[in-house]
């Protein structure tokens, strides 16, 4: 479903992603783990047509995002690291707008919005303005929205950041359920190792722009002779703390946080 060969992205002299290769099979839940600044988000941006790779090849359902951006976009849904809802619109309007942007025919749109919003326990709040929603509700709405156009792949970039354990648990239950019932392939990143261990079929660990290990959670533990995925992760990527310099996006995130209060 996703095939990546020797993917490279350089910003000036920095190799954000340096020769990454992996395959994600159809119907699989694939976790892409790594410390801050390892190249996770940059990789996702290249897979989702938001960034052009410096070199290497990407195939999404057999298509090259560079040459077929619109066909590729129709095939995936994405939940970004930062919220991307319109707070001044209602939950339903956000869903509907997405459906129109993705050319979902009206009848299908109406049916599917109701089905997904019911599944994510948001149907009762459909007429509420999104700015009045809690963090967990917004996340659920974003995932429901990402699935509206029946994508083949769902990208989740740290979807549980800042959520309480209840919301996280509920969110993964829904994601697993959709993976099993609709067969949607899931590509996720997270900093919570227990989540990855719980939901992911296979895991790849990236550090300094290259993949340092891959396999199932058990394989990674065996490989590193550790008892938990967290232990395996630390054994593979070291215990030093990565200081990311704040770029424009981080600064914006801070302002957005400030304004959301």
């Amino acid at each position, binding site marked *: 479903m996703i095939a990546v060969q020797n993917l490279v992205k350089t910003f000036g002299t920095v190799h954000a992603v340096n020769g990454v290769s992996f395959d994600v099979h159809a119907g699989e839940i694939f976790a892409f783990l790594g410390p801050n600044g390892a190249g996770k988000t940059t990789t996702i941006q290249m897979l989702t047509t938001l960034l052009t790779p410096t070199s290497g090849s990407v195939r999404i359902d057999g298509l090259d995002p560079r040459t077929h951006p619109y066909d590729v976009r129709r095939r995936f849904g994405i939940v970004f690291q930062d*919220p991307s809802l*319109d707070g001044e619109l209602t939950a339903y309007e956000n869903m509907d707008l997405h459906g129109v942007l993705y050319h979902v025919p009206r009848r299908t749109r109406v049916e599917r919005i109701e089905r997904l919003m019911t599944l994510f326990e948001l149907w009762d709040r459909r007429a509420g303005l999104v700015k009045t929603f809690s963090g967990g509700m917004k996340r659920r709405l974003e995932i429901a929205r990402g699935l509206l156009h029946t994508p083949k792949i769902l990208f989740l970039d740290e979807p549980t950041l800042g959520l309480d354990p209840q919301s996280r648990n509920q969110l993964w239950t829904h994601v697993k359920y959709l993976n099993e019932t609709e067969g949607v392939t899931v590509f996720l990143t997270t900093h919570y190792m227990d989540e990855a261990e719980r939901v992911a079929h296979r895991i790849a660990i990236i550090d300094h722009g290259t993949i340092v290990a891959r396999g199932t959670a058990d394989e990674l533990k065996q490989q590193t002779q550790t008892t938990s995925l967290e232990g395996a992760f630390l054994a593979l990527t070291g215990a030093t703390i990565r200081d990311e310099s704040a770029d424009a996006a981080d600064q914006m995130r801070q302002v957005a946080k400030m304004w959301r209060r």
Partner: protein
Amino acid sequence: MRAIYILWLRELKRYSRSRAQIIASLGQPLLYLLALGFGLGPVFQQAGRGSYLQFVAPGVIGMSVLFSSIFSGIGLLWDRQFGFLKETLVAPVPRLHIMIGKTLGGATVSVIQGTMVLVICLLAGFRPSSVSTIPLAFAFMVLICIVFAALGTAIGSSLQNMQGFQLIMNFLVMPIYFLSGALFPLTNLPTALAVITRLDPLTYGIDGLRGALIGVSAFSAATDFAVLVSVAVAFTVLGAYRFSKIQV
């Protein structure tokens, strides 16, 4: 086409829901109209130029339209900050459609805003010279809206954060307004000012409005029209170009 429509509709919904903002945005034109219209009225009268309220009303309408259309474009910055922009940029829709939808939405909101200010002017005692030319006034209003909504989109696409906003406000929006002939006649100006006012696109918009509403203008309606249309095309191309360069 559906994408353009839904993004246009989004702008209107957002506008109709921000009641406080609507009222706040009517305050400034009202202040200009009352303070300047009545305050400078006697001086203007003594200079033999007639009623200043009559003269300044089209300028005040032009001002509110200028502000609201530029700010709607800069609203892109909010979309960027609150993340919604990304949602539209990964959608299987050409960026040009997104830009057009947003710009038309902003322009429509500004026309509504301008119409409300026109009504306020009428309530304050402004009397258009003839009813038959009011459609022409609206045509000029629409043109001003498109010109500056497109400029706003170009600016909104180029700015990275809110810090640049004050800069744009003080060094672009206010000069466009004050140097446009909104507040003073374009005749007998010092040469430098005469040149600058003629380089300001809003000058032609307000001149067109004034010609249509009170029958007084420095240029012919055809000149105003031609300049505004050319600038609208140029700014739309610029806006579309800048928008296509946005990186998320």
